[in-house]
């Protein structure tokens, strides 16, 4: 696997209009309005955003499935719109809806797709690894959502690609399948592949991604590693702490800058914690008032906080 310093995928100012849309009096609708991102070999790059943010459209433009209206895309140094079989052989695609024929059976289907490549992956190993060997004789239409998803992943990998596009790879997966799929994605990353995935699940991005691009309203609104994004200043950059203690504590004498409320009987939430000294002050207040918390929960800032800071709306 050639690991190169130049990006596997580079998208700059991507613009895509769809339509004409009847409800817009026949005008075009701009669904991508300047998405920019890049993906490197040996990394999992996640496009994170709400449904309808433009993640799938961005991927489809990069895969050559949709023609863009503006901006540039370089996939392995080439423009996907004019790409031939040589480029397609180096890129694996897993579509959101699978794209597998309902009447097909897993093994013949994988063998058929493998026939499109000169040096495909070993199907037996892939089938075993993804647990497909337990349903080789079932037609696609009878597979569960998770089984379909694993088969689609196998179909995407069978050609031994260098760049892998996964559109919502964890959709429909039960916890075990999710574990299998995530482990395989990490392994492919460690082999040096460039993995580009979309997700609307913050948890997926936090668990898998080396680098995250947050897409909202057809634009890239933030980017960085997960720790970088978490460290970003925002309106909710202070953290909160929850503790349990006796009911009816007098919260009036809390240290300056901290705020607390008894959200339910004996359950308290302290907000406004910004630095270690705030925690120390809180502990001193407990000592002064002889409060021994029965439980403590210090919530770290997570990607959801970051996302809400940026987009200002709920995305789960």
């Amino acid at each position: 696997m050639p690991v190169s310093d130049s990006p596997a995928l580079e998208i700059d100012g991507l613009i895509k209009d769809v339509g004409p849309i009847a409800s817009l009096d026949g005008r075009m609708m701009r669904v991508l309005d300047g998405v920019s991102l890049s993906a490197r070999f040996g990394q999992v790059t996640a496009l994170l955003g709400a449904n309808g943010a433009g993640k799938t459209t961005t991927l489809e433009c990069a895969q050559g499935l949709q023609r863009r209206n503006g901006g540039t895309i370089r996939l392995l140094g080439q423009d996907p719109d004019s790409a031939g079989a040589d480029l397609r052989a180096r890129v694996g695609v897993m579509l959101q809806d699978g794209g597998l024929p309902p009447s097909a059976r897993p093994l013949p289907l994988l063998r058929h797709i493998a026939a499109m490549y000169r040096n495909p992956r070993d199907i037996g190993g892939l089938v075993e690894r993804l647990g497909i060997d337990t349903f080789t004789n079932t037609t696609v239409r009878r597979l569960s959502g998770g089984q379909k998803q694993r088969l689609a992943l196998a179909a995407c990998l069978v050609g031994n690609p260098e760049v892998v596009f996964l559109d919502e790879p964890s959709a429909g997966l039960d916890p075990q399948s999710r574990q299998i799929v995530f482990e395989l994605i990490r392994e492919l990353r460690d082999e040096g592949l460039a993995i580009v995935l979309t997700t609307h699940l913050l948890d997926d991005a936090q668990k898998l991604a080396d680098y995250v691009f947050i897409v909202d309203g057809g634009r890239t609104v933030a980017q960085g590693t997960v720790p970088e994004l978490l460290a970003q200043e925002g309106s909710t950059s202070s953290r909160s702490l929850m503790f349990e203690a006796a009911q009816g504590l007098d919260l009036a004498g809390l240290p300056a800058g901290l705020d607390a409320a008894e959200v339910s009987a004996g359950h308290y939430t302290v907000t406004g914690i910004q630095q270690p000294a705030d925690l120390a002050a809180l502990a001193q207040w407990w000592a002064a008032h002889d409060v021994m918390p029965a439980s403590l929960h210090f919530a770290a800032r997570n990607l959801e906080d970051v996302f809400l800071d940026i987009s200002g709306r709920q995305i789960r």
Partner: protein
Amino acid sequence: MSTPAPLAARVLAQGRYETITMLRNGEQLILAVVLPLMALIGLSVTPLLDGLGASRINIATPGILALCAMSTAFTGQGIATGFDRRYGVLRFLSTTPLGRAGLIWGKVIAVLAVLVLQVLVVSAVALLLGWQPSPAGWALGVPLLVLGAAAFTALGLLVAGTVRPEATLAITNLLWLVLGAFGGIVLPSDRQPLLVQDIVHFLPSGALGQALRDAFLTGTLNLGETLVLLVWAALASAGALRWFKWS
């Protein structure tokens, strides 16, 4: 670095895969083989084709061969493509080295492969029933069947690529029935209602049926009907290239 299999290998693999898929489909087999055979036998035991200057089976068989081309290239292939489009199969396969052009060529190969099997079965039964094709018939008939299959494949793709798969299913089945009965494909134009006699020669069904009858009955090439088929093939191909939606 991953490299694609050679173009010919990709297209042949796709053609083989689609052929097997078509042959495994029960409804498709009924449309492709059972109904044409029933029509062939029906026409050879009833007096529908009497008084046209040749034996019933000699008039019926070329029309049934034309019907086979329409059922496989138009109805069968159209419906399969429509649902492949719905399920994202066309989009997924076009991201593999096969690509969009390879996908279409694979479908053409599958249509021709199934058509060969249909022609073998129908001809064998027809010969048993006393069919006597003109000596020059096959030399003209085979290229005409290929041309007809091309026109109907393009028409099937045009329908499948522009409307929902349920509509494709309805349109291609309905047209198969209507053109099969009144399109001049098995019943020559002078056995049609007066209303349609003049137009069937301009339909792809009537053109293919008549051209094949002239080829197998008298060994002559019907230039007019061949031209009609060429025009249909060209128009439908242009339309499919222009309007076919992959998703």
